[in-house]
């Protein structure tokens, strides 16, 4: 399962505990259970017809609210996916999956009841509705609004549908990447190419009368290359992912992905021990945005705010970051990895400015947390599959474009660390303490990139980091990732080149002076 290796967040034990308590203790307690097994299956046939008739959806919603509760929804999903792995120049395996099912949810006050079924029929749906209604027993009975098909603006366009692609085409982009990686430099001894695509058909119906359906395509292409040097080895990684058709590979070629990856593998063979201690950090534009995804984004998700435990609780309207700092979550950027037309609760995607010029503007919410904190729904209610409850999640999250030229930012930094790319990281959303691992980094001496250094950890507190960001470039770019919060979802993170003063860097070498 190649895709599962690339978490934005790895899961240290303490963190895991918090996540498991949010995402369902079952995850921690039942490692062999199926509820956690989805998300990377594969299949090739046309979708099995799971269109559930409107009457049945209505009956299910009505049943779910029979015992009380103020909101109920039904989510029907059919996901057809495929994953192909090429390693050591061989097509090693291919995995297809057809997964379908429905989840029924009831909200009553702060309580959520949830049940799901793999087998979609009237009996099972009504049974799920009954199980989900358990939490609402004894509360006031509200009648649901009749469901009607709703309109949503679409931000995902497809030119070459994934369903129409011959398998040979998929293999071909993999071969091209493999060849380009091996041709890049004799030090590249192995390439691993992972191709994944899926089409996720969603139907959402709720007691507010909403009925929506769409089919969401997703492509995820990962290249890893092993560089072999005299005394060391380095596994590079580059990823490309969009909600789009196969035309993605015309816009960014497999060769470009492979060469970017191979370049990192070769460059890092010269890496020396990183210094340890507090220093200034310049982060190159792109996937480095995962730093704010973790350090600022997760603490701005409204579930922990509603619980009054989040690091940003009670700070709305307050100055939390430096004047130059503006941060946005925007699920409507066309075809990006974090984009959908509407979230998994049916809320229209839009641009949400979270922090503007250093002032906290809003939290990211789903239906439940929006109600709890008395804020509008921001379209951040997402779920890994029909087997998961929607929770507030990020989409495409980024530090907005600034005014500085990237080269000036570097030139004006006398000493420090230049981080070209990060592997990923995690945050404790309660304390705001985060960590990241550098994938490719260089020492800065007299305003210039110099020696590459080994994968060091960056740590700090979210509030400090945004207060200490003092330069923001005009070169906004994005990278794709997988975000884990008890359940997985696809996101992108972005930023222009930025400078953060005084981050603790975990190298293995004592710094002089």
């Amino acid at each position, binding site marked *: 399962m190649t895709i599962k290796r690339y978490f934005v967040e790895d899961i240290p034990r303490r963190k895991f505990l918090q996540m498991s308590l949010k995402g369902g203790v*079952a995850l921690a307690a039942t490692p062999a*259970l199926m509820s956690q097994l989805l998300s990377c299956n594969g299949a090739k046939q046309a979708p099995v017809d799971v269109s559930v008739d409107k009457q049945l959806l209505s009956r299910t919603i009505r049943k779910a609210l029979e015992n009380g509760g103020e909101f109920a929804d039904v989510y029907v999903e059919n996901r057809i996916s495929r994953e192909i792995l090429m390693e050591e120049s061989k097509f090693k395996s291919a*995995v297809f999956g057809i997964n379908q099912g429905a989840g029924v949810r009831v909200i009553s006050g702060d309580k959520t009841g949830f049940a799901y*079924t793999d087998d979609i029929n009237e009996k099972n749906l009504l049974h799920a509705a009954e199980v989900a209604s358990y939490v609402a027993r004894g509360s006031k009975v509200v009648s649901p609004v009749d469901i009607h098909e709703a309109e949503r603006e679409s931000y995902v366009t497809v030119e070459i549908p994934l369903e129409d692609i011959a398998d040979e085409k998929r293999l071909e982009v993999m071969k091209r990447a493999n060849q380009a990686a091996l041709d890049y430099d004799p030090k590249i*001894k192995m390439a691993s190419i992972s191709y994944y695509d899926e089409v996720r058909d969603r139907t959402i119906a709720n007691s507010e009368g909403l009925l929506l359906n769409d089919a969401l395509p997703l492509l995820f292409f990962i290249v890893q290359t092993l560089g072999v040097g005299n005394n060391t080895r380095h596994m590079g990684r580059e990823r490309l992912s969009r909600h789009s058709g196969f035309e993605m590979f015309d816009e960014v070629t497999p060769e470009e992905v492979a060469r970017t990856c191979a370049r990192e593998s070769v460059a890092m063979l010269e890496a020396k021990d990183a210094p340890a201690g507090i220093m200034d950090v310049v982060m190159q534009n792109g996937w480095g945005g995962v730093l704010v995804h973790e350090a600022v984004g997760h603490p701005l998700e409204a579930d922990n705010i509603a619980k009054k*435990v989040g690091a940003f609780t009670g700070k709305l309207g307050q100055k939390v970051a430096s004047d130059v700092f503006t941060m946005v979550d925007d699920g409507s950027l066309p075809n990006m990895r974090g984009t959908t037309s509407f979230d998994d609760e049916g809320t229209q995607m839009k641009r949400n400015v979270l922090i503007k010029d250093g002032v906290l503007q809003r939290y990211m919410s789903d239906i439940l947390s929006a109600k709890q904190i008395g804020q509008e729904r921001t379209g951040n209610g997402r779920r890994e599959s029909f087997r998961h409850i929607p929770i507030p999640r990020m989409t495409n999250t980024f530090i907005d474009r600034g005014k500085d030229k990237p080269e000036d930012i570097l030139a004006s930094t006398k000493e420090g660390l230049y981080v070209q790319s990060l592997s990923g990281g995690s945050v404790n959303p309660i304390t705001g303490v985060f*960590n990241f691992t550098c994938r490719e980094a260089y020492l800065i001496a007299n305003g210039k990139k110099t020696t590459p250094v080994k994968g060091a950890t960056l*740590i700090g507190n979210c509030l400090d980091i945004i207060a200490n960001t003092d330069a923001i470039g005009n070169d906004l770019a994005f990278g794709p990732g997988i975000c884990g919060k008890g359940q997985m979802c696809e996101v992108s993170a972005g930023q222009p080149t930025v400078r953060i003063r005084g981050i603790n860097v*975990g190298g293995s070498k004592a710094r002089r002076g």
Partner: protein
Amino acid sequence: MDHKYMAEQLVKKCLAKGADEAEVLIQTGKNLSLEIRNGEIETAEEASSQGVGFRVFVASKMAFSSCNDFSEAALDNAISSAIAFAKNLTSDVNNVLPDDQGVTEVEGLYDPNLTQVPMDKKIEMAKTVEALAMKDPRITKSAGAGYGEGESEIFIANSHGLSKSKKTSSVGFGVSVVAEKGEQKSSGGEYCSRRHFADLKSEEEIAEKAAQDAYEMLDPQMVETQKAAVIFDPDVARAILGGILAALNGERVLQGASFLRESLDTKISSELMTLVDDGTRPKGMRSTPFDGEGVPTQKRVVVDKGVLKGFMYNTIVAKRAGIQSTGNASRGGYSSLPGIGPHNFYMEAGESSPKEIIRSTKKGLYLKGVTGYGINPVNGNFSGGASGFWVENGEIAFPVKGLTIAGTAETILNGIDMLGNDLDLNRTMTAPTFRVQFMQIGGK
């Protein structure tokens, strides 16, 4: 339908549709999950699910498909998809299925009483553990308590006549709390998971540990950047064992992507370190009578007093390496291909008590929390965020947060100079408390 029979019949169907060899894995399961906050149910979830995975071989090319719809049309479709796709892949003589009919006897993997425990009692447990954890005046908020349980049945059959099944259960509960003091926030938590309900720790024990976890880290201080001893608490054993484990993956070794690739039968660590992978431990959370493709499990010493004795393999990678599978085929579930993974993987206990280890440390970090990816399995580099306590003259002096630690697998593993006697085999991937002579610590 009898799933064992169904798996066997589906193997035949794969062959009839054109596969040379085939394996069918059927999984059924149900789960319950409860989340409690401030004494009220926040989320209640209950569901059962099922799925089937087909691994087919056509001219030594391997493909896989899965579906969770057991109708005949859906199953036919999944099988045909896998067979059609296999034809496009690369042929490899190592693509074979196991034929070992053996099953290792492992006791206590299923608790028949689990579902008999009344729902009210389960809710009460989560409520109680939360209430107890909140009792300490230093604890100001609950981040939630939870209870979860699950049952799963697996049926595996292949065209070599192998047909096996197992039934397992697991149950767990825990709590997460916040301690606040002025502007400071510190979170802590604890959980316990077991195969049997009756084996769970008491609510008091879990609550106390969770609360302590949060409040003991209040008022942290910063230390200078320096080299000093690092004492690893069992809570952070994973930071070291995870990277070793990935480097022991037989496929990574063959690909040259493991820092241990040339270390077989050589000394890779201090003599104090013995690593065991045990698939047979009664009631073990990672124990199983057979691995993810049906090969019987065993108890193996992987590193013996510092000497690397072997890597981990599934059937295909073992064939490529010219040896027998070690019973380490891992499987995420019905929807995934077998990979390579451990069972109950741990470092054997030593003789010192954790107190003695602290007492004999003049200056160093007693590490309770690590963030980051642990040891890089490709090159052995290690760097992470660190928190815990600062030790001075054999005593705990004050809590520390926001530090970093770094080193290489070679220096860390060879630097282990004290080993605790506090191994808890109920944890998965664990170690007793151990000390590394010195590591680079990043602070102010």
